[in-house]
C-alpha cells in the first residue's frame, strides 16, 4: 500500500535500508520466503482434501458397482494413459531444473526450462483431449451422448458404466483444469523471470509455482492407476 504516515518515522516500515523485494508486512527476506512456502503447503493440503472427497466417492461407487467400473476402465486406453504419465513426469523434471537454475541465478536457463515445462503440459492436455474426443465419437459421454454398445458394457448395467465414465470425465477434467491454471502460472513466471523481476535472492515465486506443479502431477499419479490400471480380474 502506498499510504504513507505523515508522523515522523511512525510505523513506517520503509524507513531505513530495506530490500526492495521485501513486502512491507515482513521484517526480513527469510521470513517472507518461509511464509510463502508455508502458505503453498497449506494450500496444497486444501487441494488434497478437495480431491480427497472425490476419491472417496469414487472408491465407494467402485465397491458398489464393481462390474460396471471394471467394464468402464476397459474402455480407457492404457497406452495413452501411460504416455501422459511419462510426459507429466518429464514436465516435473524440467520444473525441478527451473527451480534449481533460479537458485543459481541462471535466468535464461530458468526461462528455457519453464517453457519446456509448459510445452510438456500442453502435450499432456493434447493427449487428454484426443482421448476425450475418442469418447465423444464412441458415444460414451455421460449425460450428454451416452449410447454404449453391448461390447462396451461387457455385461454390466449401462447406468454403472455411465457412473464410471462420469467420474472419469470429472476427475480428469478437474485435473486438466488445474493443469491449465498451472500453465498460466508458469507462463507468468517465465515472463517475470525474462524481464528480471525474479532473481536468485528472491526466487520463492518460482519455488512456490514448482510445488503447485508437482502437486498436480501427483494427483495424476493417483488418477492413472485408479482409472486405467486397476481393471479387476475379469479376464
Amino acid at each position, binding site marked *: 500500500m502506498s499510504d504513507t504516515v505523515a508522523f515522523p518515522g511512525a510505523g513506517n516500515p520503509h524507513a531505513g535500508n530495506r530490500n526492495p523485494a521485501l513486502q512491507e508486512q515482513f521484517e526480513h527476506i527469510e521470513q517472507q520466503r518461509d511464509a510463502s512456502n508455508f502458505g503453498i503447503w497449506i*494450500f496444497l493440503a486444501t487441494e488434497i482434501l478437495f480431491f480427497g472427497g472425490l476419491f472417496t*466417492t469414487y472408491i465407494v461407487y467402485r465397491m458398489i458397482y464393481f462390474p460396471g467400473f471394471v467394464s468402464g476402465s476397459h474402455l480407457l486406453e492404457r497406452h495413452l494413459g501411460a504416455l501422459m504419465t511419462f510426459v507429466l513426469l518429464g514436465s516435473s523434471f524440467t520444473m525441478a531444473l527451473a527451480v534449481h537454475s533460479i537458485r543459481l541465478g541462471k535466468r535464461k536457463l530458468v526461462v528455457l526450462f519453464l517453457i519446456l515445462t509448459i510445452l510438456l503440459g500442453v502435450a499432456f492436455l493434447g493427449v487428454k483431449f484426443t482421448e476425450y474426443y475418442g469418447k465423444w465419437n464412441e458415444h460414451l459421454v455421460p*449425460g450428454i451422448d451416452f449410447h454404449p454398445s453391448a461390447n462396451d458394457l461387457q455385461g454390466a448395467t449401462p447406468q454403472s458404466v*455411465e457412473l464410471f465414465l462420469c467420474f472419469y470425465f470429472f476427475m480428469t477434467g478437474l485435473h486438466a483444469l488445474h493443469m491449465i491454471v498451472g500453465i498460466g502460472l508458469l507462463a507468468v513466471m517465465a515472463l517475470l523471470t525474462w524481464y528480471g523481476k525474479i532473481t536468485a535472492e528472491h526466487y520463492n515465486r518460482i519455488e512456490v509455482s514448482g510445488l503447485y506443479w508437482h502437486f498436480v502431477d501427483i494427483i495424476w499419479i493417483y488418477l492413472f492407476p485408479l482409472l486405467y490400471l486397476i481393471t479387476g480380474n475379469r479376464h
Partner: protein
Amino acid sequence: MSTAVVERPLYNPVNYLNVKHTLKSWLLTTDHKRIALLYLGSITMLFFVGGFAAMLMRLNLLEPAGAIVHPETYNKLFTMHGIVMVWFFLIPSIPTTLGNFLIPIMVGARDLAFPKLNLLSWYIFIFGSAFTLYALVSGGVDTGWTFYTPLSSLYVTTHVMAAAAGVFITGFSSILTGLNFIVTVHKMRAPGMTWFRLPLFVWSMYATSVIFVLATPVLAITLLLIGLERGLHVGIFDPALGGDPILFQHLFWFYSHPAVYIMILPGMGVVSELVAAFSRKRVFGYKAIGFSSMAIALFGFFVWGHHMFVSGQSVYAGMVFSALSFAVAIPSAIKVFNWTATLYKGSISFDAPMLYALGFIGLFTIGGLTGLFLAALSVDVHVHDTYFVIAHFHYIMVGGAVMAYLGGIHFWWPKITGKLYPDVWARLAAVIIFVGFNLTFFPQYLLGYLGMPRRYAMYPAEFQMLNVMSTAGASILGLGYLLPLVYLIWSLRYGPDAGPNPFLATGLEWEETQSPPTTHNFEEIPVVTQDAYAYENMGIPNV
C-alpha cells in the same frame, strides 16, 4: 507485556481510519484493520437479512395453521435463514472481523502474512453473497440449508444452483482466510512472542483456521457433485439412478459438523479474553484452554455421523460416532471449568462485554449439555428433527457464538474506533438479548421434547402457547440486536475518546498500540518479555 525502552510519540493523529478518506482507499486497501471493517459492514447487513427471515417464520408460527405465509414460502424462509446465517454470518463473523483486526496486532506484526490475499477473500465473500442474494430475490430456495439429496439435486425446481454456487464461492474466502491466519501465527510472531505467550484468542483462531482449510474443500467438492448430478442426470446421489443419498450426507457433514466448531471456537477465544480482563486475573489453566481448542478442532472431524443416526447409517458406526461425540464434551467442559475458576476470587466488574461473556458461559453450558442428549443414540431417535435440535444448536450458535461476537465487538470497539460507547445502554442491550434469547429458545426445548418437528409451517393447536412465547421472545431479541446498531453508530460521532487502554487490559493491542492504531500498528515491532494476562501488573481501572 513490555518492550525495550523506546521513546515514541504518545499519540499519532494519523491512524488507519483517517489516513485516507477516498472510496478507493477502502476498496483497494490491504490493511487488515480496514478489511476487518469491510467485513463488519457486510456481515452486519447479512445478519439482518437472515434475522428478517427468522422474524417472518416466528410470526407465522403464532397460529397453528400458519399466520402470514404460505407453507411453500415458509420453506424458503427457513432455507434462506439457515444459509445466510450459517455461511454468511456465523462462519465469517468473529474470524473475519475481530480475527482480521486483532491477530496481526496480538502476535506483534504489521499485517497478516498475505495482505492482498486477505482483500481477495473479502471480494470472494461479496461475490458469493451476491449469488446467494440473487437466489433469495429471484424466488428463493426450499431445500433447507443442508441441500439434502435427492431433493436438492433432482426434485426441486427452485434456485438451488445459484444458492449452492454462492456457498461454493464463499468457501474459498474461508479457505484463504484460514490459510492467512495459520501462516501469520507461525511466521509473523514478534521477538519473544512464544506459542505459550499468545493470547488464547489467537489459539482459538488457529484451531478455527485448521478447520477452515481442511473441512471447507470437502464441501466444495460435494456441491460440485450436486451440480454434476443436476446438470447431467447421472446417479451420484439419486437412489432412483443408482446413487447413494447417504453418501451425500456423509460428505456434507464431514464439512458441516467441523463447521459448527468454526462457529463456536472463535467465541470461546473471545470469552477467554473477556473473563480475564473483567476479573483482573490470569486465565486459569492457560495451556488447558489452548490445547482444548486444538482438541475440539481435531475431535470435530470424527463426529459427523451423529447427524445420521436415523438416516440408515450402520448401527455400529452410530455407536462409534455417539461415543466420539460424547468425547467432544470433555475439552468443552475443560474450558467452562477454567473460565469459572478464573472468576474465583477475581475482582469482577460487570461491564457490557463481561455480561455477554457470562451469558455465553451459561447458555453454552445449556446448549452443550443438551448436545449430550442428542449424542445418545436412543434419545436422538426420539428428538431427531424436532425443535429440541433447533433449541440445542441455537443455544450454541446464538447463545454462544453471537453473544461472544457481540461481547468481542463491544470490548474491542474502543480500540477499533477510538471511541467509547455508552456503557449503560450496552448493559441494557446485553440483558435484553439474554432475556429475549431464553424466552425464544427455551420453549423450543419443550416443544421438541413434546414432539413438534422442525421445518413445518403448521402445528397442532396444543403447541400454540409455547410457540407464542417463543415468538414474543424473538421480538425482544430483535429489539436487543437493533440497540447496539444504534448506540455503536452514535458513539462514532458523539462518544468520548477512548484512549489506548480504557479497560486496562493486557495484550499488545492494548499496551502497544494507540486507539485507533496507525496503519502499520506499531512504531517498532515490540519485544515481548511476559506471558499473556499479567493482570497483577495492571491495577484496577477506575470506571
